[in-house]
């Protein structure tokens, strides 16, 4: 495959938090253009850790990281990476720190060196594309849980990333907002990876599913019957079902 089409390439990544058992033990992972990958696995299995390693927020003990065809090592390299990869955090309260929605969405573009006027334009455009027009002057911490999640997504998309990493984006969302998120994700023209425990949601929004088990990535294609009630792929991994999505 042409190297340029590989957005993220991880080779033999190892990681452990100081003094603890290794969380990641030899991760091989590759994300290509327009690919949509779901990542499932048990709590504490290192999924969030993996995202933070890709963003350079955590340093792997060993391994090779290549992003957009370039080897990434120093903090300076990662600063460039963060311009092209957007990470949506698990808790929107971690992401929204500005007084108003507009300022928060414009924060990324301003850091990218856009003028205040340009940043404002991008922010308004992004909000509109997510159906959030009219939210610009709202105070971030007074938004509802679902609104916070969508605004967080806007803050990331405003930076026009090439890749989106979503860390449990459906946690705490009602079926309606979840559905809205699904349709937004389906329309996006960029590659993304996301972590979720919600296998139905993952199946609706991704082309490929990987599991993260015992510090390694497992890809499992065959169907594993795992309860007497139902059966589907990845059944051996711990997961949950949102029966609410089944009717949608």
């Amino acid at each position, binding site marked *: 495959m042409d190297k340029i089409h590989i957005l993220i390439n991880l080779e033999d990544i190892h990681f452990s938090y100081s003094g603890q058992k290794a969380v990641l033990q030899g991760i091989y992972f590759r994300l290509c253009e327009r690919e949509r990958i779901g990542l499932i696995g048990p709590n504490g299995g290192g999924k969030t850790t993996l995202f*933070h390693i890709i*963003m350079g927020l955590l340093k792997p003990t060993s391994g090779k990281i290549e992003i957009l065809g370039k080897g990434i090592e120093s903090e300076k390299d990662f600063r460039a990476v963060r311009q092209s990869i957007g*990470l949506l955090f698990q808790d929107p*309260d*971690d992401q929204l720190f500005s007084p108003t929605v507009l*300022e928060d969405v414009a924060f990324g573009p301003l*850091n990218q060196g856009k003028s205040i006027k340009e940043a404002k334009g991008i922010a308004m455009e992004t909000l509109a594309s997510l159906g959030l027009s009219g939210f610009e002057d709202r*105070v971030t911490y007074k938004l509802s849980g679902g609104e916070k999640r969508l605004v967080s997504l806007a803050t990331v998309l405003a930076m026009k990333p090439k890749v989106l990493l979503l860390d449990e984006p459906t946690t705490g969302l009602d079926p309606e907002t979840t559905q809205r998120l699904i349709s937004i994700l389906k329309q996006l023209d960029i590659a993304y990876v996301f972590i979720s425990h919600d296998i139905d949601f993952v199946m609706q929004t991704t082309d490929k599913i990987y599991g993260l088990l015992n510090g390694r990535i497992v890809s499992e294609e065959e169907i594993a019957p795992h309860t007497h009630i139902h059966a589907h792929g990845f059944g051996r991994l711990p997961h949950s079902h949102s029966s609410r999505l089944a009717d949608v």
Partner: protein
Amino acid sequence: MFDEDFANEKSVIHRLDPRVKIVIAAAFSSVISVSSRWIALAPGLVFSVSLVLISGLPIRKVCLRLVVVNSLILFLWFFLPFSLKGTPCFTIGPFTATKEGMLYVLLLTLRSNIIVLALVSLVSTIPIFALGRAMGRLCVPNKIVQLFLFTYRYLHVIHLEYLRLVNALKIRGFRPTTSMHTYKTYAYLFGMLLVKSYDRSERVRKAMLCRGFKGKFYDMTRPSLRTFDLVTMLLMCVAVVGIALLQWTRFIY
């Protein structure tokens, strides 16, 4: 928890540029806090009371704030009259109150109330975020402004976390008593809150790094002072200077 209910009215004072209000509040409080003459304090009182009236704040709520301040000052009334030397006024047991002491406490009480009234009408009528930005534009060091804004933003989140922890205690039948168990539980509660807020600050920092934060914040609003702001500023400055003159010169007598 933080309703900022004083900032939501629509009076002339609310419409004033926050910078003007901060400057006036700072100048006025500095003058009043060192004023010792009644002739200077009396117009000061009139000034701050009229500000409160113009701002249209609910008088009952303003009074409630004064009660909070004065309950602290109450303690001074217990001690100061008896600890200053001077003409005896009255005696309780072995303690003698002096006239000088009484006047001094009265002075302190008056000063505090004047300043609190002015701050209530000038500063608490500014929404917190506007206050932060105005501080930035008045050349308050950036770090202080950011510390202020972040504290406000995350106090809310930490408060919610606190409520969650308290609920977790309640549903397991915790009732505070005077016992080691209660103290220990509260210690755990606050310890946990501290650890959680530390973790949160780490996550917020990471989220900011992910969006390309390089240590600089951008102010997207560029308000300019209107004639109305400038005229009000001028009038209020005259009032403050007038009070200062009454305190430090012998204009009147």
